[in-house]
């Protein structure tokens, strides 16, 4: 396989072998999980819309490495990777994809709408960019309650052209909200490339109009993402307000399962896979730094495959929700767990 020699340098000194193995494991879990989801979709076990995260794994894994307990995250409909990266159970995620009782939303949310109070994951939102003010609102609550939590608010290059993003930038900076805006720039908003949708292609640079600092990050390099994440989080925790990370990444699959992806060449995709793949990058670091042997990595691959297969089995075996569920969870009788007291 032709790989650019520059792709694998030695890992920085502050990154331990255990860290690298953890990133490898976490990214591989997302990749294998998504491949399995694609397979289950093909078998008709998953319905409707299903947006896979394959290719973008380093973004969430790098940023989770910069997060602490209590930090919140919210994202769009391309959300499976975010959930796995923040520690949600693959079984619960896969069972939601198949619309079963064992899913995170009891089968009532689907691929695009999952949540976890326990892991501070606030969805899973299907309307492009709606999660951006919601994320600022989560950060508003943390600031109001006087804790030092930060909210990671993920959105894509497509969402970056929605007006509510800029309403939110304005208020987030005005009120110094502790929110990291993560623009996952995978270069295509469904079929429209960034260049075909704006002349202002420096997406993080738009924050300057509101006084928000930011930077562009190599999203195929998990270590670069982690380092940028740590900087952004420190900025927020210091009470300096929001920070923008424009993470340059690439989605290998179509926008959703029914996208034939004719707006880019097969060669373009193949080139990214061959030369810039985030998982291969960490694999090279592990092997070249003699942190792990081929056999050890094979063992990890096997272990991940088992976790994913178990999640698929669970998702197939979990029953469909009881028909009574149609009528539950429309109104809350009391505040659910995890209200203000818990965040204080």
């Amino acid at each position, binding site marked *: 396989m032709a790989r650019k020699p520059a792709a694998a340098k030695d890992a920085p000194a502050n990154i331990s072998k255990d860290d690298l193995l953890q990133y490898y494991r976490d990214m591989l879990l997302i990749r294998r999980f998504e491949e399995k989801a694609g397979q289950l979709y093909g078998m008709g076990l998953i319905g409707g819309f299903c947006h896979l995260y394959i290719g973008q794994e380093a973004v969430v894994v790098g940023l989770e490495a910069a997060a602490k307990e209590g930090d919140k995250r919210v994202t769009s409909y391309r959300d499976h990777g975010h959930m796995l990266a923040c520690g949600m159970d693959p079984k619960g995620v896969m069972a939601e994809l198949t619309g079963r009782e064992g899913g995170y939303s009891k089968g009532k*949310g689907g691929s695009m709408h999952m949540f976890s109070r326990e892991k501070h994951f606030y969805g899973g939102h299907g309307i492009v960019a709606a999660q951006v003010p919601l994320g600022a609102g989560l*950060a508003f609550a943390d600031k109001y309650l006087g804790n030092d939590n930060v909210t990671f608010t993920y959105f894509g290059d497509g969402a970056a052209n929605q007006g509510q993003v800029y309403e939110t930038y304005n208020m987030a900076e005005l009120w110094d909200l502790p929110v990291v805006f993560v623009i996952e720039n995978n270069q295509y908003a469904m079929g429209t490339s960034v260049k075909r949708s704006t002349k202002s292609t420096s997406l993080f640079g738009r924050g300057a109009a509101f006084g928000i600092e930011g930077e562009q990050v190599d999203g195929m390099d998990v270590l670069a993402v982690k380092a940028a994440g740590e900087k952004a989080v420190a900025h927020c925790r210091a009470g300096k307000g929001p920070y923008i990370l424009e993470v340059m990444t690439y989605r290998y699959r179509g926008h959703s399962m029914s996208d034939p992806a004719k707006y880019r060449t097969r060669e373009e995709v193949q080139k990214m896979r061959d030369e810039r793949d985030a998982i291969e990058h960490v694999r090279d670091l592990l092997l070249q730094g003699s942190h792990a042997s081929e056999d050890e990595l094979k063992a990890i691959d096997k272990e991940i495959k088992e976790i994913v297969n178990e999640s698929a089995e669970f998702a197939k075996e979990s029953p469909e929700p009881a028909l009574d569920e149609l009528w539950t969870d429309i109104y809350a009788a009391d505040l659910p767990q995890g209200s203000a007291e818990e965040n204080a």
Partner: protein
Amino acid sequence: MATEILMPALSPTMEEGTLAKWLKKEGDEVKSGDILAEIETDKATMEFEAVDEGILGKILIQEGSEGVKVNTPIAVMIEEGESADDIEASSSPASSGDAAPAESKAEPTPAASADAGPQTPSANASPDWPEGTKMKSMTVREALREAMEEEMSRDETVFLMGEEVGEYQGAYKISQGLLDKFGPRRVVDTPISEYGFAGIGTGAALAGLRPIVEFMTFNFAMQAMDHIINSAAKTLYMSGGQMGCPIVFRGPNGAAARVGAQHSQDYAAWYAAIPGLKVVMPYTAADAKGLLKQAIRDPNPVIFLENEILYGRSFEVPDLEDFTIPFGKARIARSGKDVTIVSFGIGMAHSLEAADKLAEEGIEAEVIDLRTLRPIDYGTVIESVKKTNRLVTVEEGFPVGAIGNHISAYVMENAFDWLDAPVINCTGKDVPMPYAANLEKHALITAPEVVEAVKKVTYK
């Protein structure tokens, strides 16, 4: 172990497709992510990627085959060392049996859904406050301000945000004095960004705060509709009950005076259509206070529709330390035996005026103030109709898809035999609000129109 590759469903609706081209041939090594084949659906030609690695042992469906059903085995993958000859037996087409999710055994029947859906509750005729309670005169404006002040004092997580709520003291002075009392942390002036701050408020509510989001008028809330409905109202359901959203969206709704089409609209029926929202539309100051306090304490998103013309009107309000009015409990504003008039919000002013007029002519109208439109107190309406046998509904909103339409349908289904005349819905006219004074007056519902409708249903 040999594994079958099945014809994939490549879109939510695909049932079959054409296997256009194999990009791998028998004996080829396959890595996860390699493109195996091109498949044509009715919409597009899709690339079909391998999930597992192995060797493409045998192709079962040749390229060019049309009408290949989803889940038909199209090829078999083998591992190194295995022979393609071993797989003949295992590749029977029946093996796709476990692929489809189990069909629901029991579809919900209409009867079952009616059981779980809105019930016909009996009327709750208990008084809103104890008899003999001392009363004081108060405007709706003062009542709303007091409600917010009391709830903000009671619960630290309650805060107010919106345009001009703080330093300006409220565009309609509803929040007068609150900034001085609670400070800028809890009385938050926003820029003119309805979509944005409705979303920020919703996010804060998901995290456990209890925001009161003021819209300068509900006309501007159309810009925030997505967050009100998609983010606030639906998240509890979509999260399987995990994510509550205790938020109040409030502000003046409906026509003011001479402000033209874009600033004069009653949204009651719009919001009342949405499961997950609660919708309140008070008429009196006592209801405004008791219901707003209840709304702020409610763990769900509440739409609280006020009226600019009513802000300055005075009503008797109970002089109590702390009182709330439950949702879903209508108020019988006037008892009568000849006809039932059902209304809410400013429609009540026209209804009561009409009832006085009708009384002079010997027709005794029973006037019911719904107060909340989600939930609706159907029981009180049905009980009254069983007594009067006649029904007129009164509201300011447009006639198509009006609250009155819904009440009519409900009464027809549940009290048809008690009706002695067709139900009449009095509504605003089916036109954008005109500016000219005479035209505006004609576009709005008026007391004389209610009188006329009552005479029709009573055949007078």
